[in-house]
């Protein structure tokens, strides 16, 4: 027993002697031994032909003059392919799910003697919301994610992070955030998952919280529609396209600016104490494996995200139908809320319909515009437009949408603020859930949810007052 004690006390005294470098020394010794063993049992081919191709490509991709233009060109091509390529399949899915299956489902339910309210909740609420989410969400994701994964697989994306790092370093973030940010343009939930590549706790949280500032695929159509109605219409027809596109790009760039500003703010305030480390591995280039990429990006990203969106859209569809069909004292709950919140919404340069739409369409940004249209028709008591209370709809012609919105009291200010609010509001419920899954923290989930909405309210408020003071 004495022996043990004396050993322990000797060991204890020795710890002070050895000091704190023991960990470093140990790692060094392990590497030294490993090197020795490896050098005895391995032989290397003389030539290094394999790496010259990569080295040349690296020099080109990180070149002072070519690096950024090449990156923007590639990004533009990916977006163009996504937007152009998604139109046709989106239309096809919508014509099947919304135009064909929806009436059939209604008829079937009616013929089964289901009461009108059950038909409404199931067919007009739950089913339609899911159909909408699938038709708007699936095609762009099925194009964007495989393209993105191909670039990742080839080894190009780490080089983007390498080039973008100095910008993000100044904002207190990690260069790899450039990738999760870009992924967010496809879908914020996928963007949040993509932050897994950031291996430093603080920078990863920053990337998660700010991902919502990337204008996602579900918000692009809203931006384009509103921009074409309220800005495109102000100028001659041949300029309308450019002005519309310009306005949307400005909103997207504003989102990137907010990402950097908020990243800087977070890293200097509430995230100051989180651990942080930087290193960025640049793996060798390799030919992308097409089939495997297609499979993994479809399963890992597209299907999982789509499934979560559908799960959240179903109850929301029911809620949307119910608030527009349950009457309290002769008016629907929707109208009650719209009338009640109108003064508050007015101060923000919005209206009660928009606020309600953003609250009940929280599962997916895709259904905000259909909900806004339906609620406007409902609250303005329009006839001849839409498909009835609680049934979301979309109009083929932007002019027809514009007419409905004008009846709903929309002005240029409303248009601007809806574009801003669409950029700056809480993440959709799929993203919120994903943030919770990724951070395992209620606190950071709340921060990521509340921060953008507070910013959105403040900015809409400021814009509304400035507009009214200047324009009148």
């Amino acid at each position, binding site marked *: 027993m004495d022996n043990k004690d004396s050993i322990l006390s000797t060991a204890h005294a020795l710890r002070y002697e050895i000091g704190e470098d023991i960990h470093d020394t140990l790692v*060094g010794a392990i590497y030294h031994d490993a090197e020795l063993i490896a050098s005895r049992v391995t032989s290397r081919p003389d030539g290094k032909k394999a790496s010259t191709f990569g080295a040349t490509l690296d020099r080109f991709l990180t070149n*002072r003059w070519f690096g950024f233009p090449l990156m923007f060109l590639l990004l533009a091509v990916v977006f163009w392919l996504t937007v152009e390529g998604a139109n046709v399949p989106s239309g096809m899915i919508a014509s099947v799910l919304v135009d064909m299956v929806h009436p059939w489902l209604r008829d079937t339910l009616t013929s089964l003697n289901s009461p009108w309210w059950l038909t409404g909740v199931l067919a007009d609420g739950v089913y339609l919301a899911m159909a909408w989410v699938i038709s708007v969400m699936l095609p762009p994701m099925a194009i964007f994610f495989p393209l993105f994964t191909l670039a990742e697989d080839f080894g190009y994306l780490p080089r983007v992070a390498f080039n973008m790092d*100095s910008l993000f*370093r100044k904002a207190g973030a990690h260069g790899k955030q450039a990738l999760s940010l870009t992924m967010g343009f496809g879908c914020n939930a996928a963007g949040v998952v993509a932050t897994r590549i950031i291996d430093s706790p603080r920078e990863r949280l920053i990337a998660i919280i700010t991902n919502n500032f990337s204008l996602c695929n579900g918000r692009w159509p809203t931006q384009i529609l509103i921009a074409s109605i309220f800005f495109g219409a102000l100028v001659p027809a041949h300029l309308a396209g450019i002005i519309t596109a310009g306005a949307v790009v400005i909103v997207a760039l504003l989102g990137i600016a907010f990402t950097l500003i908020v990243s800087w703010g977070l890293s200097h305030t509430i995230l100051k104490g989180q651990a942080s480390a930087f*290193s960025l591995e*640049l793996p060798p280039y390799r030919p992308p494996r097409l089939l495997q990429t297609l499979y993994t990006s479809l399963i890992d990203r597209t299907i999982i995200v789509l499934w979560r969106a559908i799960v959240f859209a179903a109850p929301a569809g029911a809620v949307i139908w119910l608030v527009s069909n349950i009457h309290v004292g002769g008016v629907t709950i929707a109208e009650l809320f719209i009338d009640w919140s109108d003064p508050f919404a007015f101060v923000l340069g919005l209206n009660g319909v928009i606020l309600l739409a953003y609250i009940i369409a929280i599962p997916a940004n895709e259904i905000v515009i259909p909900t806004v249209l339906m609620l406007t028709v409902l609250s303005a008591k329009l006839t001849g437009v839409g498909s009835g209370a609680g049934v979301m709809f979309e109009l083929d012609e932007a002019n027809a949408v514009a007419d409905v919105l004008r009846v709903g009291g929309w002005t240029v200010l409303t248009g601007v603020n809806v574009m801003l609010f669409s950029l700056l509001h809480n993440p959709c419920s799929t993203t919120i859930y994903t943030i919770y899954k990724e951070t395992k923290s209620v606190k950071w989930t709340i921060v990521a949810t509340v921060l953008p909405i507070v910013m959105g309210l403040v900015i809409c408020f400021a814009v509304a007052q400035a507009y009214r003071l200047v324009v009148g």
Partner: protein
Amino acid sequence: MTDPVHIVVAAGILILAAAVFLLPRHGVLARMKRVHKDARRVMIEDALKHLHDCDYNKIACTVPSIAGALMISLDDAAALTSRLSAMGLLVPTDTGVKLTPEGNSYALRVVRVHRLWEKYLADETSLPQTEWHSSAEDREHRISPAEAEALAAQLGNPLFDPHGDPIPTAAGEIPPKKGAPLSSVAPGEWAVITHIEDEPKALFAQLSAEGLYVGMRIKMIEHTNLRIRFAADGEEIVLAPVIANNLSVELLPHAETVPASPMATLASVTVGEAVTVVGISKALRGQQRRRLLDLGVVPGTLVRAEMRSVSGDPTAYTIRGALVALRNEHAQMIFIERGERVSA
């Protein structure tokens, strides 16, 4: 009510009211929180820490010195002293007051928690080093003994805090003070910094702004009553003697093991150049240090700069067969040697 001027004025008033309540330091909420802190326990523990400090540095502790250290009035300090005395934690001596054995063991517990927190903040968070001390001051009073032991275990039972102070063991043992003031080093002699005093705050901020850290090797150049000039990591640093006294050092008798010229860092390597790592600065700590060790950045590792990013930072290096980008701020803390055993 819908007149925008009215609304803007109302918003201004609202923001002002929110500021009055929520400002981090002067807001009503922050003030209330400060008042509600367990003021009594904080006072007692801070006084015990001060007494232990005196004891450790072999200087006399008095009521005025307590008042000074805790920034309270003399009357309050006297009242505090008599309360501590009644609790059996201190006894009067000829020159002032000193800790009883019970007082000493209580003080060591507080010191242990304080230094553990400093170690934690330095290694596990990215808080700037000027905030370690004040944050630890705040945290040390809000932790139970069991939590303190869990913290120590999480940190691997460290022996020294980031300022170079020994951390007392759970049994209350602490090694005797080591090191001499910087002014004891003669010109031409080599020494290693063993301790940087973290109080007063302003002096510590100045020392840390100079980039000094525990474990740094320095060479004395000039040493007069007006200034102390020495070389540290290849840079020349000039300090007033009163500031330099906050540094403790240990002489390095085998100065020949230390390279005479300033050490080059990885940040100075040009693209295409291959160099050998000789060490990582002690100032690089926590996760970033572990990351570099994991990547195989250890003494003897061959590193070649391959390319710089479009904007010049970070730079990609070949380290043990992998291409890894490191930021300039970290490369600056990796010491290298040129022109030796350069092979592919």
